[in-house]
């Protein structure tokens, strides 16, 4: 497949919840399960005919319906999901799986259950620290989800099918990591926007189909490309979940090249493989999930800060953009701590609030431009 064709396919997938690959999978009898948070393990939703779709609201205009139930101080991601749910755009899903990511999402799940009434809905209760106690709790949570999925959808979720699902996840991750490694180059063969398009597309379509049809070929094409040379600064974006590559595109239009990221819909922790092969699959999944660096987690903050520094060093990052959804309490401390830590380390930082829907583009352009200039780039 040619590069342009591949990128066009990624964009089509991103722009349409019921894109071609989703329709193909459904036509083959597979059942899409929507989920809201990276703490809902995709591998558990990728078994015996089920396939996961990260819940997004591409192209959303306003949230007039959702605003009836969720006021403006609830984050726009939650309100966007509810909006889509209320006007039937998720009716094609077999079910929804939430995590208790935060209080915004908790209440979103309450309203969805009451007002949208999906045929299947479950809320995982992942805790906020990573200890043996909380990992054991998570194993029980996953066991409960596994049983509910099995019973409702009449699917077989056992150790064998889970281990297979984990292996497929790790395969996908290994291919994407190879692509991600190329971003460390002085002249990477792909922009941050292109990378994010692939990542977002992988959340919005069956990964197995995407991997075989497009991603592997795209990886093969990359070494033949000319590297990106016309940029002023190498940037890293971190913060809250971001599933619209348009934000990255704006940053790069202003001369930044996004060479690294730490947010859950990006490469870290999205491309962490599931290890611990010696353990039972649910425990492997539980550990992998609870070890994710995420602003909702209240411990190991120093380790996360160091992880960010490692990415900065490896990817030769000049400056960091810390972005968060407006009204996000989880990012409130984390964003502030991150900015302070990086500035003390001599790393330029720009903090931005944003809405879920791509908006405020003019302001973002101005701020990014000023940020790059302030770095002397």
């Amino acid at each position: 497949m040619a590069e342009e064709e591949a990128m066009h396919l990624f964009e089509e997938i991103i722009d349409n919840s019921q894109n071609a690959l989703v329709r193909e999978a459904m036509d083959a009898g597979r059942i899409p399960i929507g989920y809201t948070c990276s703490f809902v393990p995709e591998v558990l939703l990728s078994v015996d005919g089920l396939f996961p779709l990260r819940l997004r609201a591409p192209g959303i205009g306003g949230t007039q319906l959702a605003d009836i139930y969720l006021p403006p101080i609830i984050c726009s991601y939650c309100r966007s999901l509810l909006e889509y749910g209320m006007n039937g755009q998720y009716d094609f899903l077999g079910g929804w799986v939430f995590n208790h990511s935060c209080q915004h999402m908790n209440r979103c799940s309450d309203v969805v259950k009451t007002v949208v009434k999906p045929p299947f809905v479950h809320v995982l209760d992942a805790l906020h620290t990573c200890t043996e106690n909380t990992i054991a709790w998570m194993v029980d949570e996953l066991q409960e989800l596994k049983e509910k999925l099995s019973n409702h959808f009449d699917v077989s979720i056992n150790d064998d099918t889970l281990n297979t699902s984990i292996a497929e996840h790790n395969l996908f991750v290994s291919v994407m990591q190879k692509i991600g490694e190329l971003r460390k180059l002085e002249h990477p063969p792909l922009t941050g926007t292109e990378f994010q398009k692939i990542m977002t597309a992988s959340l919005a379509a069956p990964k197995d189909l995407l991997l075989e049809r497009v991603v592997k070929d795209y990886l093969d094409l990359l070494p033949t490309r000319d590297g990106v040379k016309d940029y002023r600064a190498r940037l890293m974006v971190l913060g809250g979940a971001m599933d619209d590559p348009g934000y990255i595109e704006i940053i790069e239009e202003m001369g930044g090249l996004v060479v690294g990221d730490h947010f859950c819909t990006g490469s870290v922790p999205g491309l962490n493989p599931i290890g611990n092969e010696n353990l039972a699959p649910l425990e492997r999944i539980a550990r992998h999930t609870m070890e994710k660096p995420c602003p909702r987690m209240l411990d190991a903050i120093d380790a996360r800060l160091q992880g960010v520094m490692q990415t900065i060093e490896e990817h030769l990052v000049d400056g960091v953009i810390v972005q968060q959804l407006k009204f996000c309490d989880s990012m409130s401390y984390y964003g502030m701590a991150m900015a302070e830590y990086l500035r003390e380390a001599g790393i330029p930082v720009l903090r931005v609030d944003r809405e879920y829907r791509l908006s405020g583009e003019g302001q973002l352009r101005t701020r990014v431009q000023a940020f790059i200039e302030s770095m002397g780039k």
Partner: protein
Amino acid sequence: MSTPQVNASESILSSTRDNWLLWKSIGKTYFGAGKTILKKRGPKILADAKQYPWIGELADLRSFFRSVSGRNGAYRKAILTLFEATATNVVDYVADVLNQPERVVYFQSAGLALTEILKSMDLVPYIDMGIPVVSSMLNPSSMAVYMDAAESEGVSSDICSLGRAGQGILFKGHYPKASVIVGNNGCEGQVNSSLLYAKKQGLPLFILDMPNIYNTERAEEFFARELRRMIEWLTSNTPGKMDWDRLKEVLDIRNRQEEAKLELWELMRLKPAPLAAEVIFFSQLIAPTFLAGTPAAVELYEALCECGQENIRKGVAANPNERYRAVVWHPFMAVHFHIYRYLELKWGVTVIQDSMSYSETVFVDTSSVESMMRGLARMMLNTPMINIARGTAANYFQTFEQIVDQYDIDLVLVGDHIGCKSVAGMTGLLRDRCRERGLPAAFIPYDLIDPRFASMSDVMTRFDQFMETVMKAEPLMETVPDIV
């Protein structure tokens, strides 16, 4: 219970008695507080007041005493008793914090109190929300300087004002010293304060993790393990050591405290109610936090019950013009708490119960260490803020329905606190539920301890508009004295 006719001489006599009650209370409060300060801090208090300016705010109790204006007899006495207990015990609490910094455990309460555990370990609790809430009740603007300081440092302005105030106190260097921090994930806005304090002061931090779905046996077992883990951590990181016999004593007292509380709540089921408003929500603010597990908590509830019984014997209502029985839903308006008196006097609205007070009452089985830990876990997981701000809509509405039915509620006063995303996210469903029940509900936006979002005047106007247009009520008086 009917409201008896009162003649002129009785009116003068009761007015004199009420004035005497007030002045006696003022004297008793300042004398008691002064005595405690001198005994525990002596002349150091002057330096304390300079180092911690919020001490000055706590010294001006006029707002408390003003709140009894228009409230008479045993109801007045109950409120004054409450404020006396608050003043004395808050002073005691602050003095202990300042005297023993090496034993101070800063904990982020989010509605749950660790007081019983900490006292049994001979540690001194510093409850993060205590000073901001009490201070803003005394002087609504007192926390503005701290909130502004927090925002200047990069704290989002949409974080709950309680969290911002706490973080601002830290940024200004006005936090008393602590030895360790215990945070929890009960409230995302407030947990930031714990994280920030630990980072800024370089103090050890423990996070108590609690399940969102709290009302299951599995959640209790998990949380009991978390509490044991916390106790072990405190033993390693502070001079404190758990005395299990002392914990048993403390929890036995707490069980008596809960019995007395239930007796008070039972009185509130009468129509008209013999007591109201602050007697409920303020007692629940103070007793389970500052006074938990002490004879003072039991005595306080018993004193409040006695006031209620006095009114019942005399056939007197807290609000002689009670027309509506209201539940305050979501946080009570700490910064504008005079609004409940305003509603009593102008509109005949009696606040009977509130969602930040009411929850399942847990009696702890003190027969073994394990049963105590399970009981504590259950108790903490069922504290009102955890109950309302976490969990699912199902348990939220279960509590709502229980209050409405048990107390014969006919009006819902929703404090639409703009900083709390968890309660804000329920307003749509709550509105639907009120409609289904045929319950009029006033949704009044405000910010918990920041008067700048909605002033007292704004709040009064909105309530007036609601009462006029929705309830079609006639005011009992045009202007309520001493309201601002």
